[in-house]
């Protein structure tokens, strides 16, 4: 379904949703940093910059409780988290690189085990994507087969027009429902020209070729060459829209506490550290190899998709300038 929505009506739509009690999550400035966060008013939305953390957070929180325990004498009681309490959410202003990662994550969270924390939030969230009109030289969505107008993952997709309004197209029942529930705010498509989309400066990379090289080169001098400099932090994985590893810890006292799930990263030395003290990935290049392997080989082997959408966040935040785009490009030329 193709529609038009003016800037004014988009504001009205979001404010109405907020008033109705829907949680609206949008890019928002928090202490100087753009982040996807719940907003109190449409005026708080700040779509100018790519949020520092990806939109995965709406389904896969930085940290969440998964259970609580209490001990009284000999009696231990456990309490589950009730997924029914996850709020209905509209996630708006999502960049194509962030939205495209969400269906990729669906695969792993609904594979042999159905992760209700992720899936329930997913079910309750409508994603409004926003075409991207500005890229920097870290962006490389075009290298991994996406583009700044990519609609994958969006229920509703907005393309900014020259008059300040948006061309609006729905790609799912959730999107249709949102339009149908607020019919008066949407008009028929106009002939106004769309703003020109961003132009990331990267060439498309042959990901099949990358994968076939990775199939054969678990051991290769390349890994030492690119990743000896890696410092072993989790910044790349944490800002990534597709990285989804998590850790589970119990926090509290003997008497009461919580079991919590929080983001984990393959760059950490503790990531595969065994209880025995042995670590199969004992050095940083082996850990970094896993990052590349998981994104461009293992995930493809299992789910037929690539675990990278080219948002460029890891390139921007890496303390030592490790650039996944140039690494994959290098591999593709081997």
């Amino acid at each position: 379904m193709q529609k038009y929505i003016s800037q004014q009506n988009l504001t009205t739509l979001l404010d109405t949703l907020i008033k109705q009690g829907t949680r609206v999550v949008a890019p928002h400035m928090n202490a100087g940093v753009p982040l996807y966060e719940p907003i109190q008013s449409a005026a708080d939305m700040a779509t100018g910059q790519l949020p520092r953390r990806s939109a995965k957070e709406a389904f896969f929180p930085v940290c969440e409780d998964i259970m609580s325990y209490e001990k009284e004498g000999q009696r231990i009681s456990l309490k589950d988290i009730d997924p029914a309490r996850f709020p209905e959410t509209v996630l708006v202003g999502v960049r194509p690189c962030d939205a495209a990662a969400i269906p990729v994550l669906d695969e792993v969270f609904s594979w042999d085990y159905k992760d209700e924390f992720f899936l329930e939030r997913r079910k309750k969230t409508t994603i409004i994507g926003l075409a991207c009109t500005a890229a920097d030289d870290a962006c490389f969505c075009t290298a991994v087969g996406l583009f700044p107008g990519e609609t994958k993952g969006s229920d509703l997709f907005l393309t900014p027009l020259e008059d300040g309004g948006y061309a609006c197209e729905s790609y799912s029942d959730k999107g249709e429902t949102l339009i149908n529930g607020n019919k008066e705010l949407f008009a028929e498509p106009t002939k106004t020209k769309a703003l020109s989309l961003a132009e990331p400066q990267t060439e498309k990379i042959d990901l099949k070729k990358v994968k076939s090289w990775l199939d054969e080169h678990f051991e290769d001098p390349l890994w030492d060459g690119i990743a000896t400099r890696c410092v072993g932090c989790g910044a790349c994985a944490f800002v990534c829209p597709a990285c989804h590893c998590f850790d589970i810890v119990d926090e509290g006292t003997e008497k009461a506490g919580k079991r919590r799930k929080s983001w984990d990263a393959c760059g950490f030395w503790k990531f595969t550290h065994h209880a025995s003290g042995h670590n199969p990935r004992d050095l940083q290049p082996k850990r970094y190899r896993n990052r590349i392997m998981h994104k461009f080989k293992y995930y493809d082997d299992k789910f037929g998709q690539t675990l990278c959408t080219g948002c460029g966040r890891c390139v921007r935040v890496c303390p030592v300038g490790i650039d996944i785009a140039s690494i994959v490009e290098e591999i593709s030329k081997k």
Partner: protein
Amino acid sequence: MTEPIDTSIYSAVTAAIQTEAQRILAAGLVTAIVGYAASRRNGSTQPIIVTDAAAAEKLIFTPASVNNLALYLTKAKKEIPKKGKIGIVVKGCDLKAIVGLMGEAQLKRNDLYLIGVPCAGVLASTVQPSTALTADTIASKCTECDARLPSDCDYVPNVQLPTQPQLAGKYAVEIARLEALTPAERWAYWKEQFAKCIKCYACRQVCPFCFCEQCLCDRNKPQMVDTTPRPAGNTAWHIVRAMHLAGRCAGCAECERVCPMDIPLNLLNRKMAKELKELYDYEAGFEVNDKGPLTTYTDKDDQSFIK
């Protein structure tokens, strides 16, 4: 008003580093050189370890040469074989960290070949690497720099440091602003900042002084600090980090530079440095001291706060 900062010496510095690196590698004086090389993004650099004289031409120095490479000399970086003498490109601030590590018996001067860089300043982490260096885009640490010319290096390119415009010390101003607030206001400020933390530990991983093989904050027996990235655990982590660096931090501000959430971490370090200067007249510098301000004492130390 963005006053430009003259970095024209950096091309001469680059050429000098390359020539010297080639010479010492070819002569076998060092087994490897840690320096900066260009990377894909326009104007950006990344650390590189050069072991072959032919590859010395990759070494550069630009306003985007932000890293403190001293990190690669510590035992935390097991990936770098510490065989023979290692050459390293250092700015004044980086050298202070090396000096600190020598004081803590982590490094020996004889194992190092120091290539000092006369430094006119580097870029702030908040701007694109291709940005021109100005009074606005310069890293905060450079506004308070007292070590633009590293001392006691094995080699320093012979260039004349341009005079730098007078810059207002950004940390001093911000610390004074925070000190003037009430405790509740300061708590609110840090609460907002720490809430953004995602516990990626980039601040710890780039710190030359965080060389512990197992960080207290990674331990779960006992678990002194909650590991989850919630406001409570984040706050505890940042307090512990600042405390463990008090009297050791050399002021390279890498923690703050690498923070993906732009938490002003170096403010905590600068505050502690300021207090230790006032209390014990200690400052990180170019002189190797076996004891830091918190690993020594005098019987006359201030105890006005003790009943």
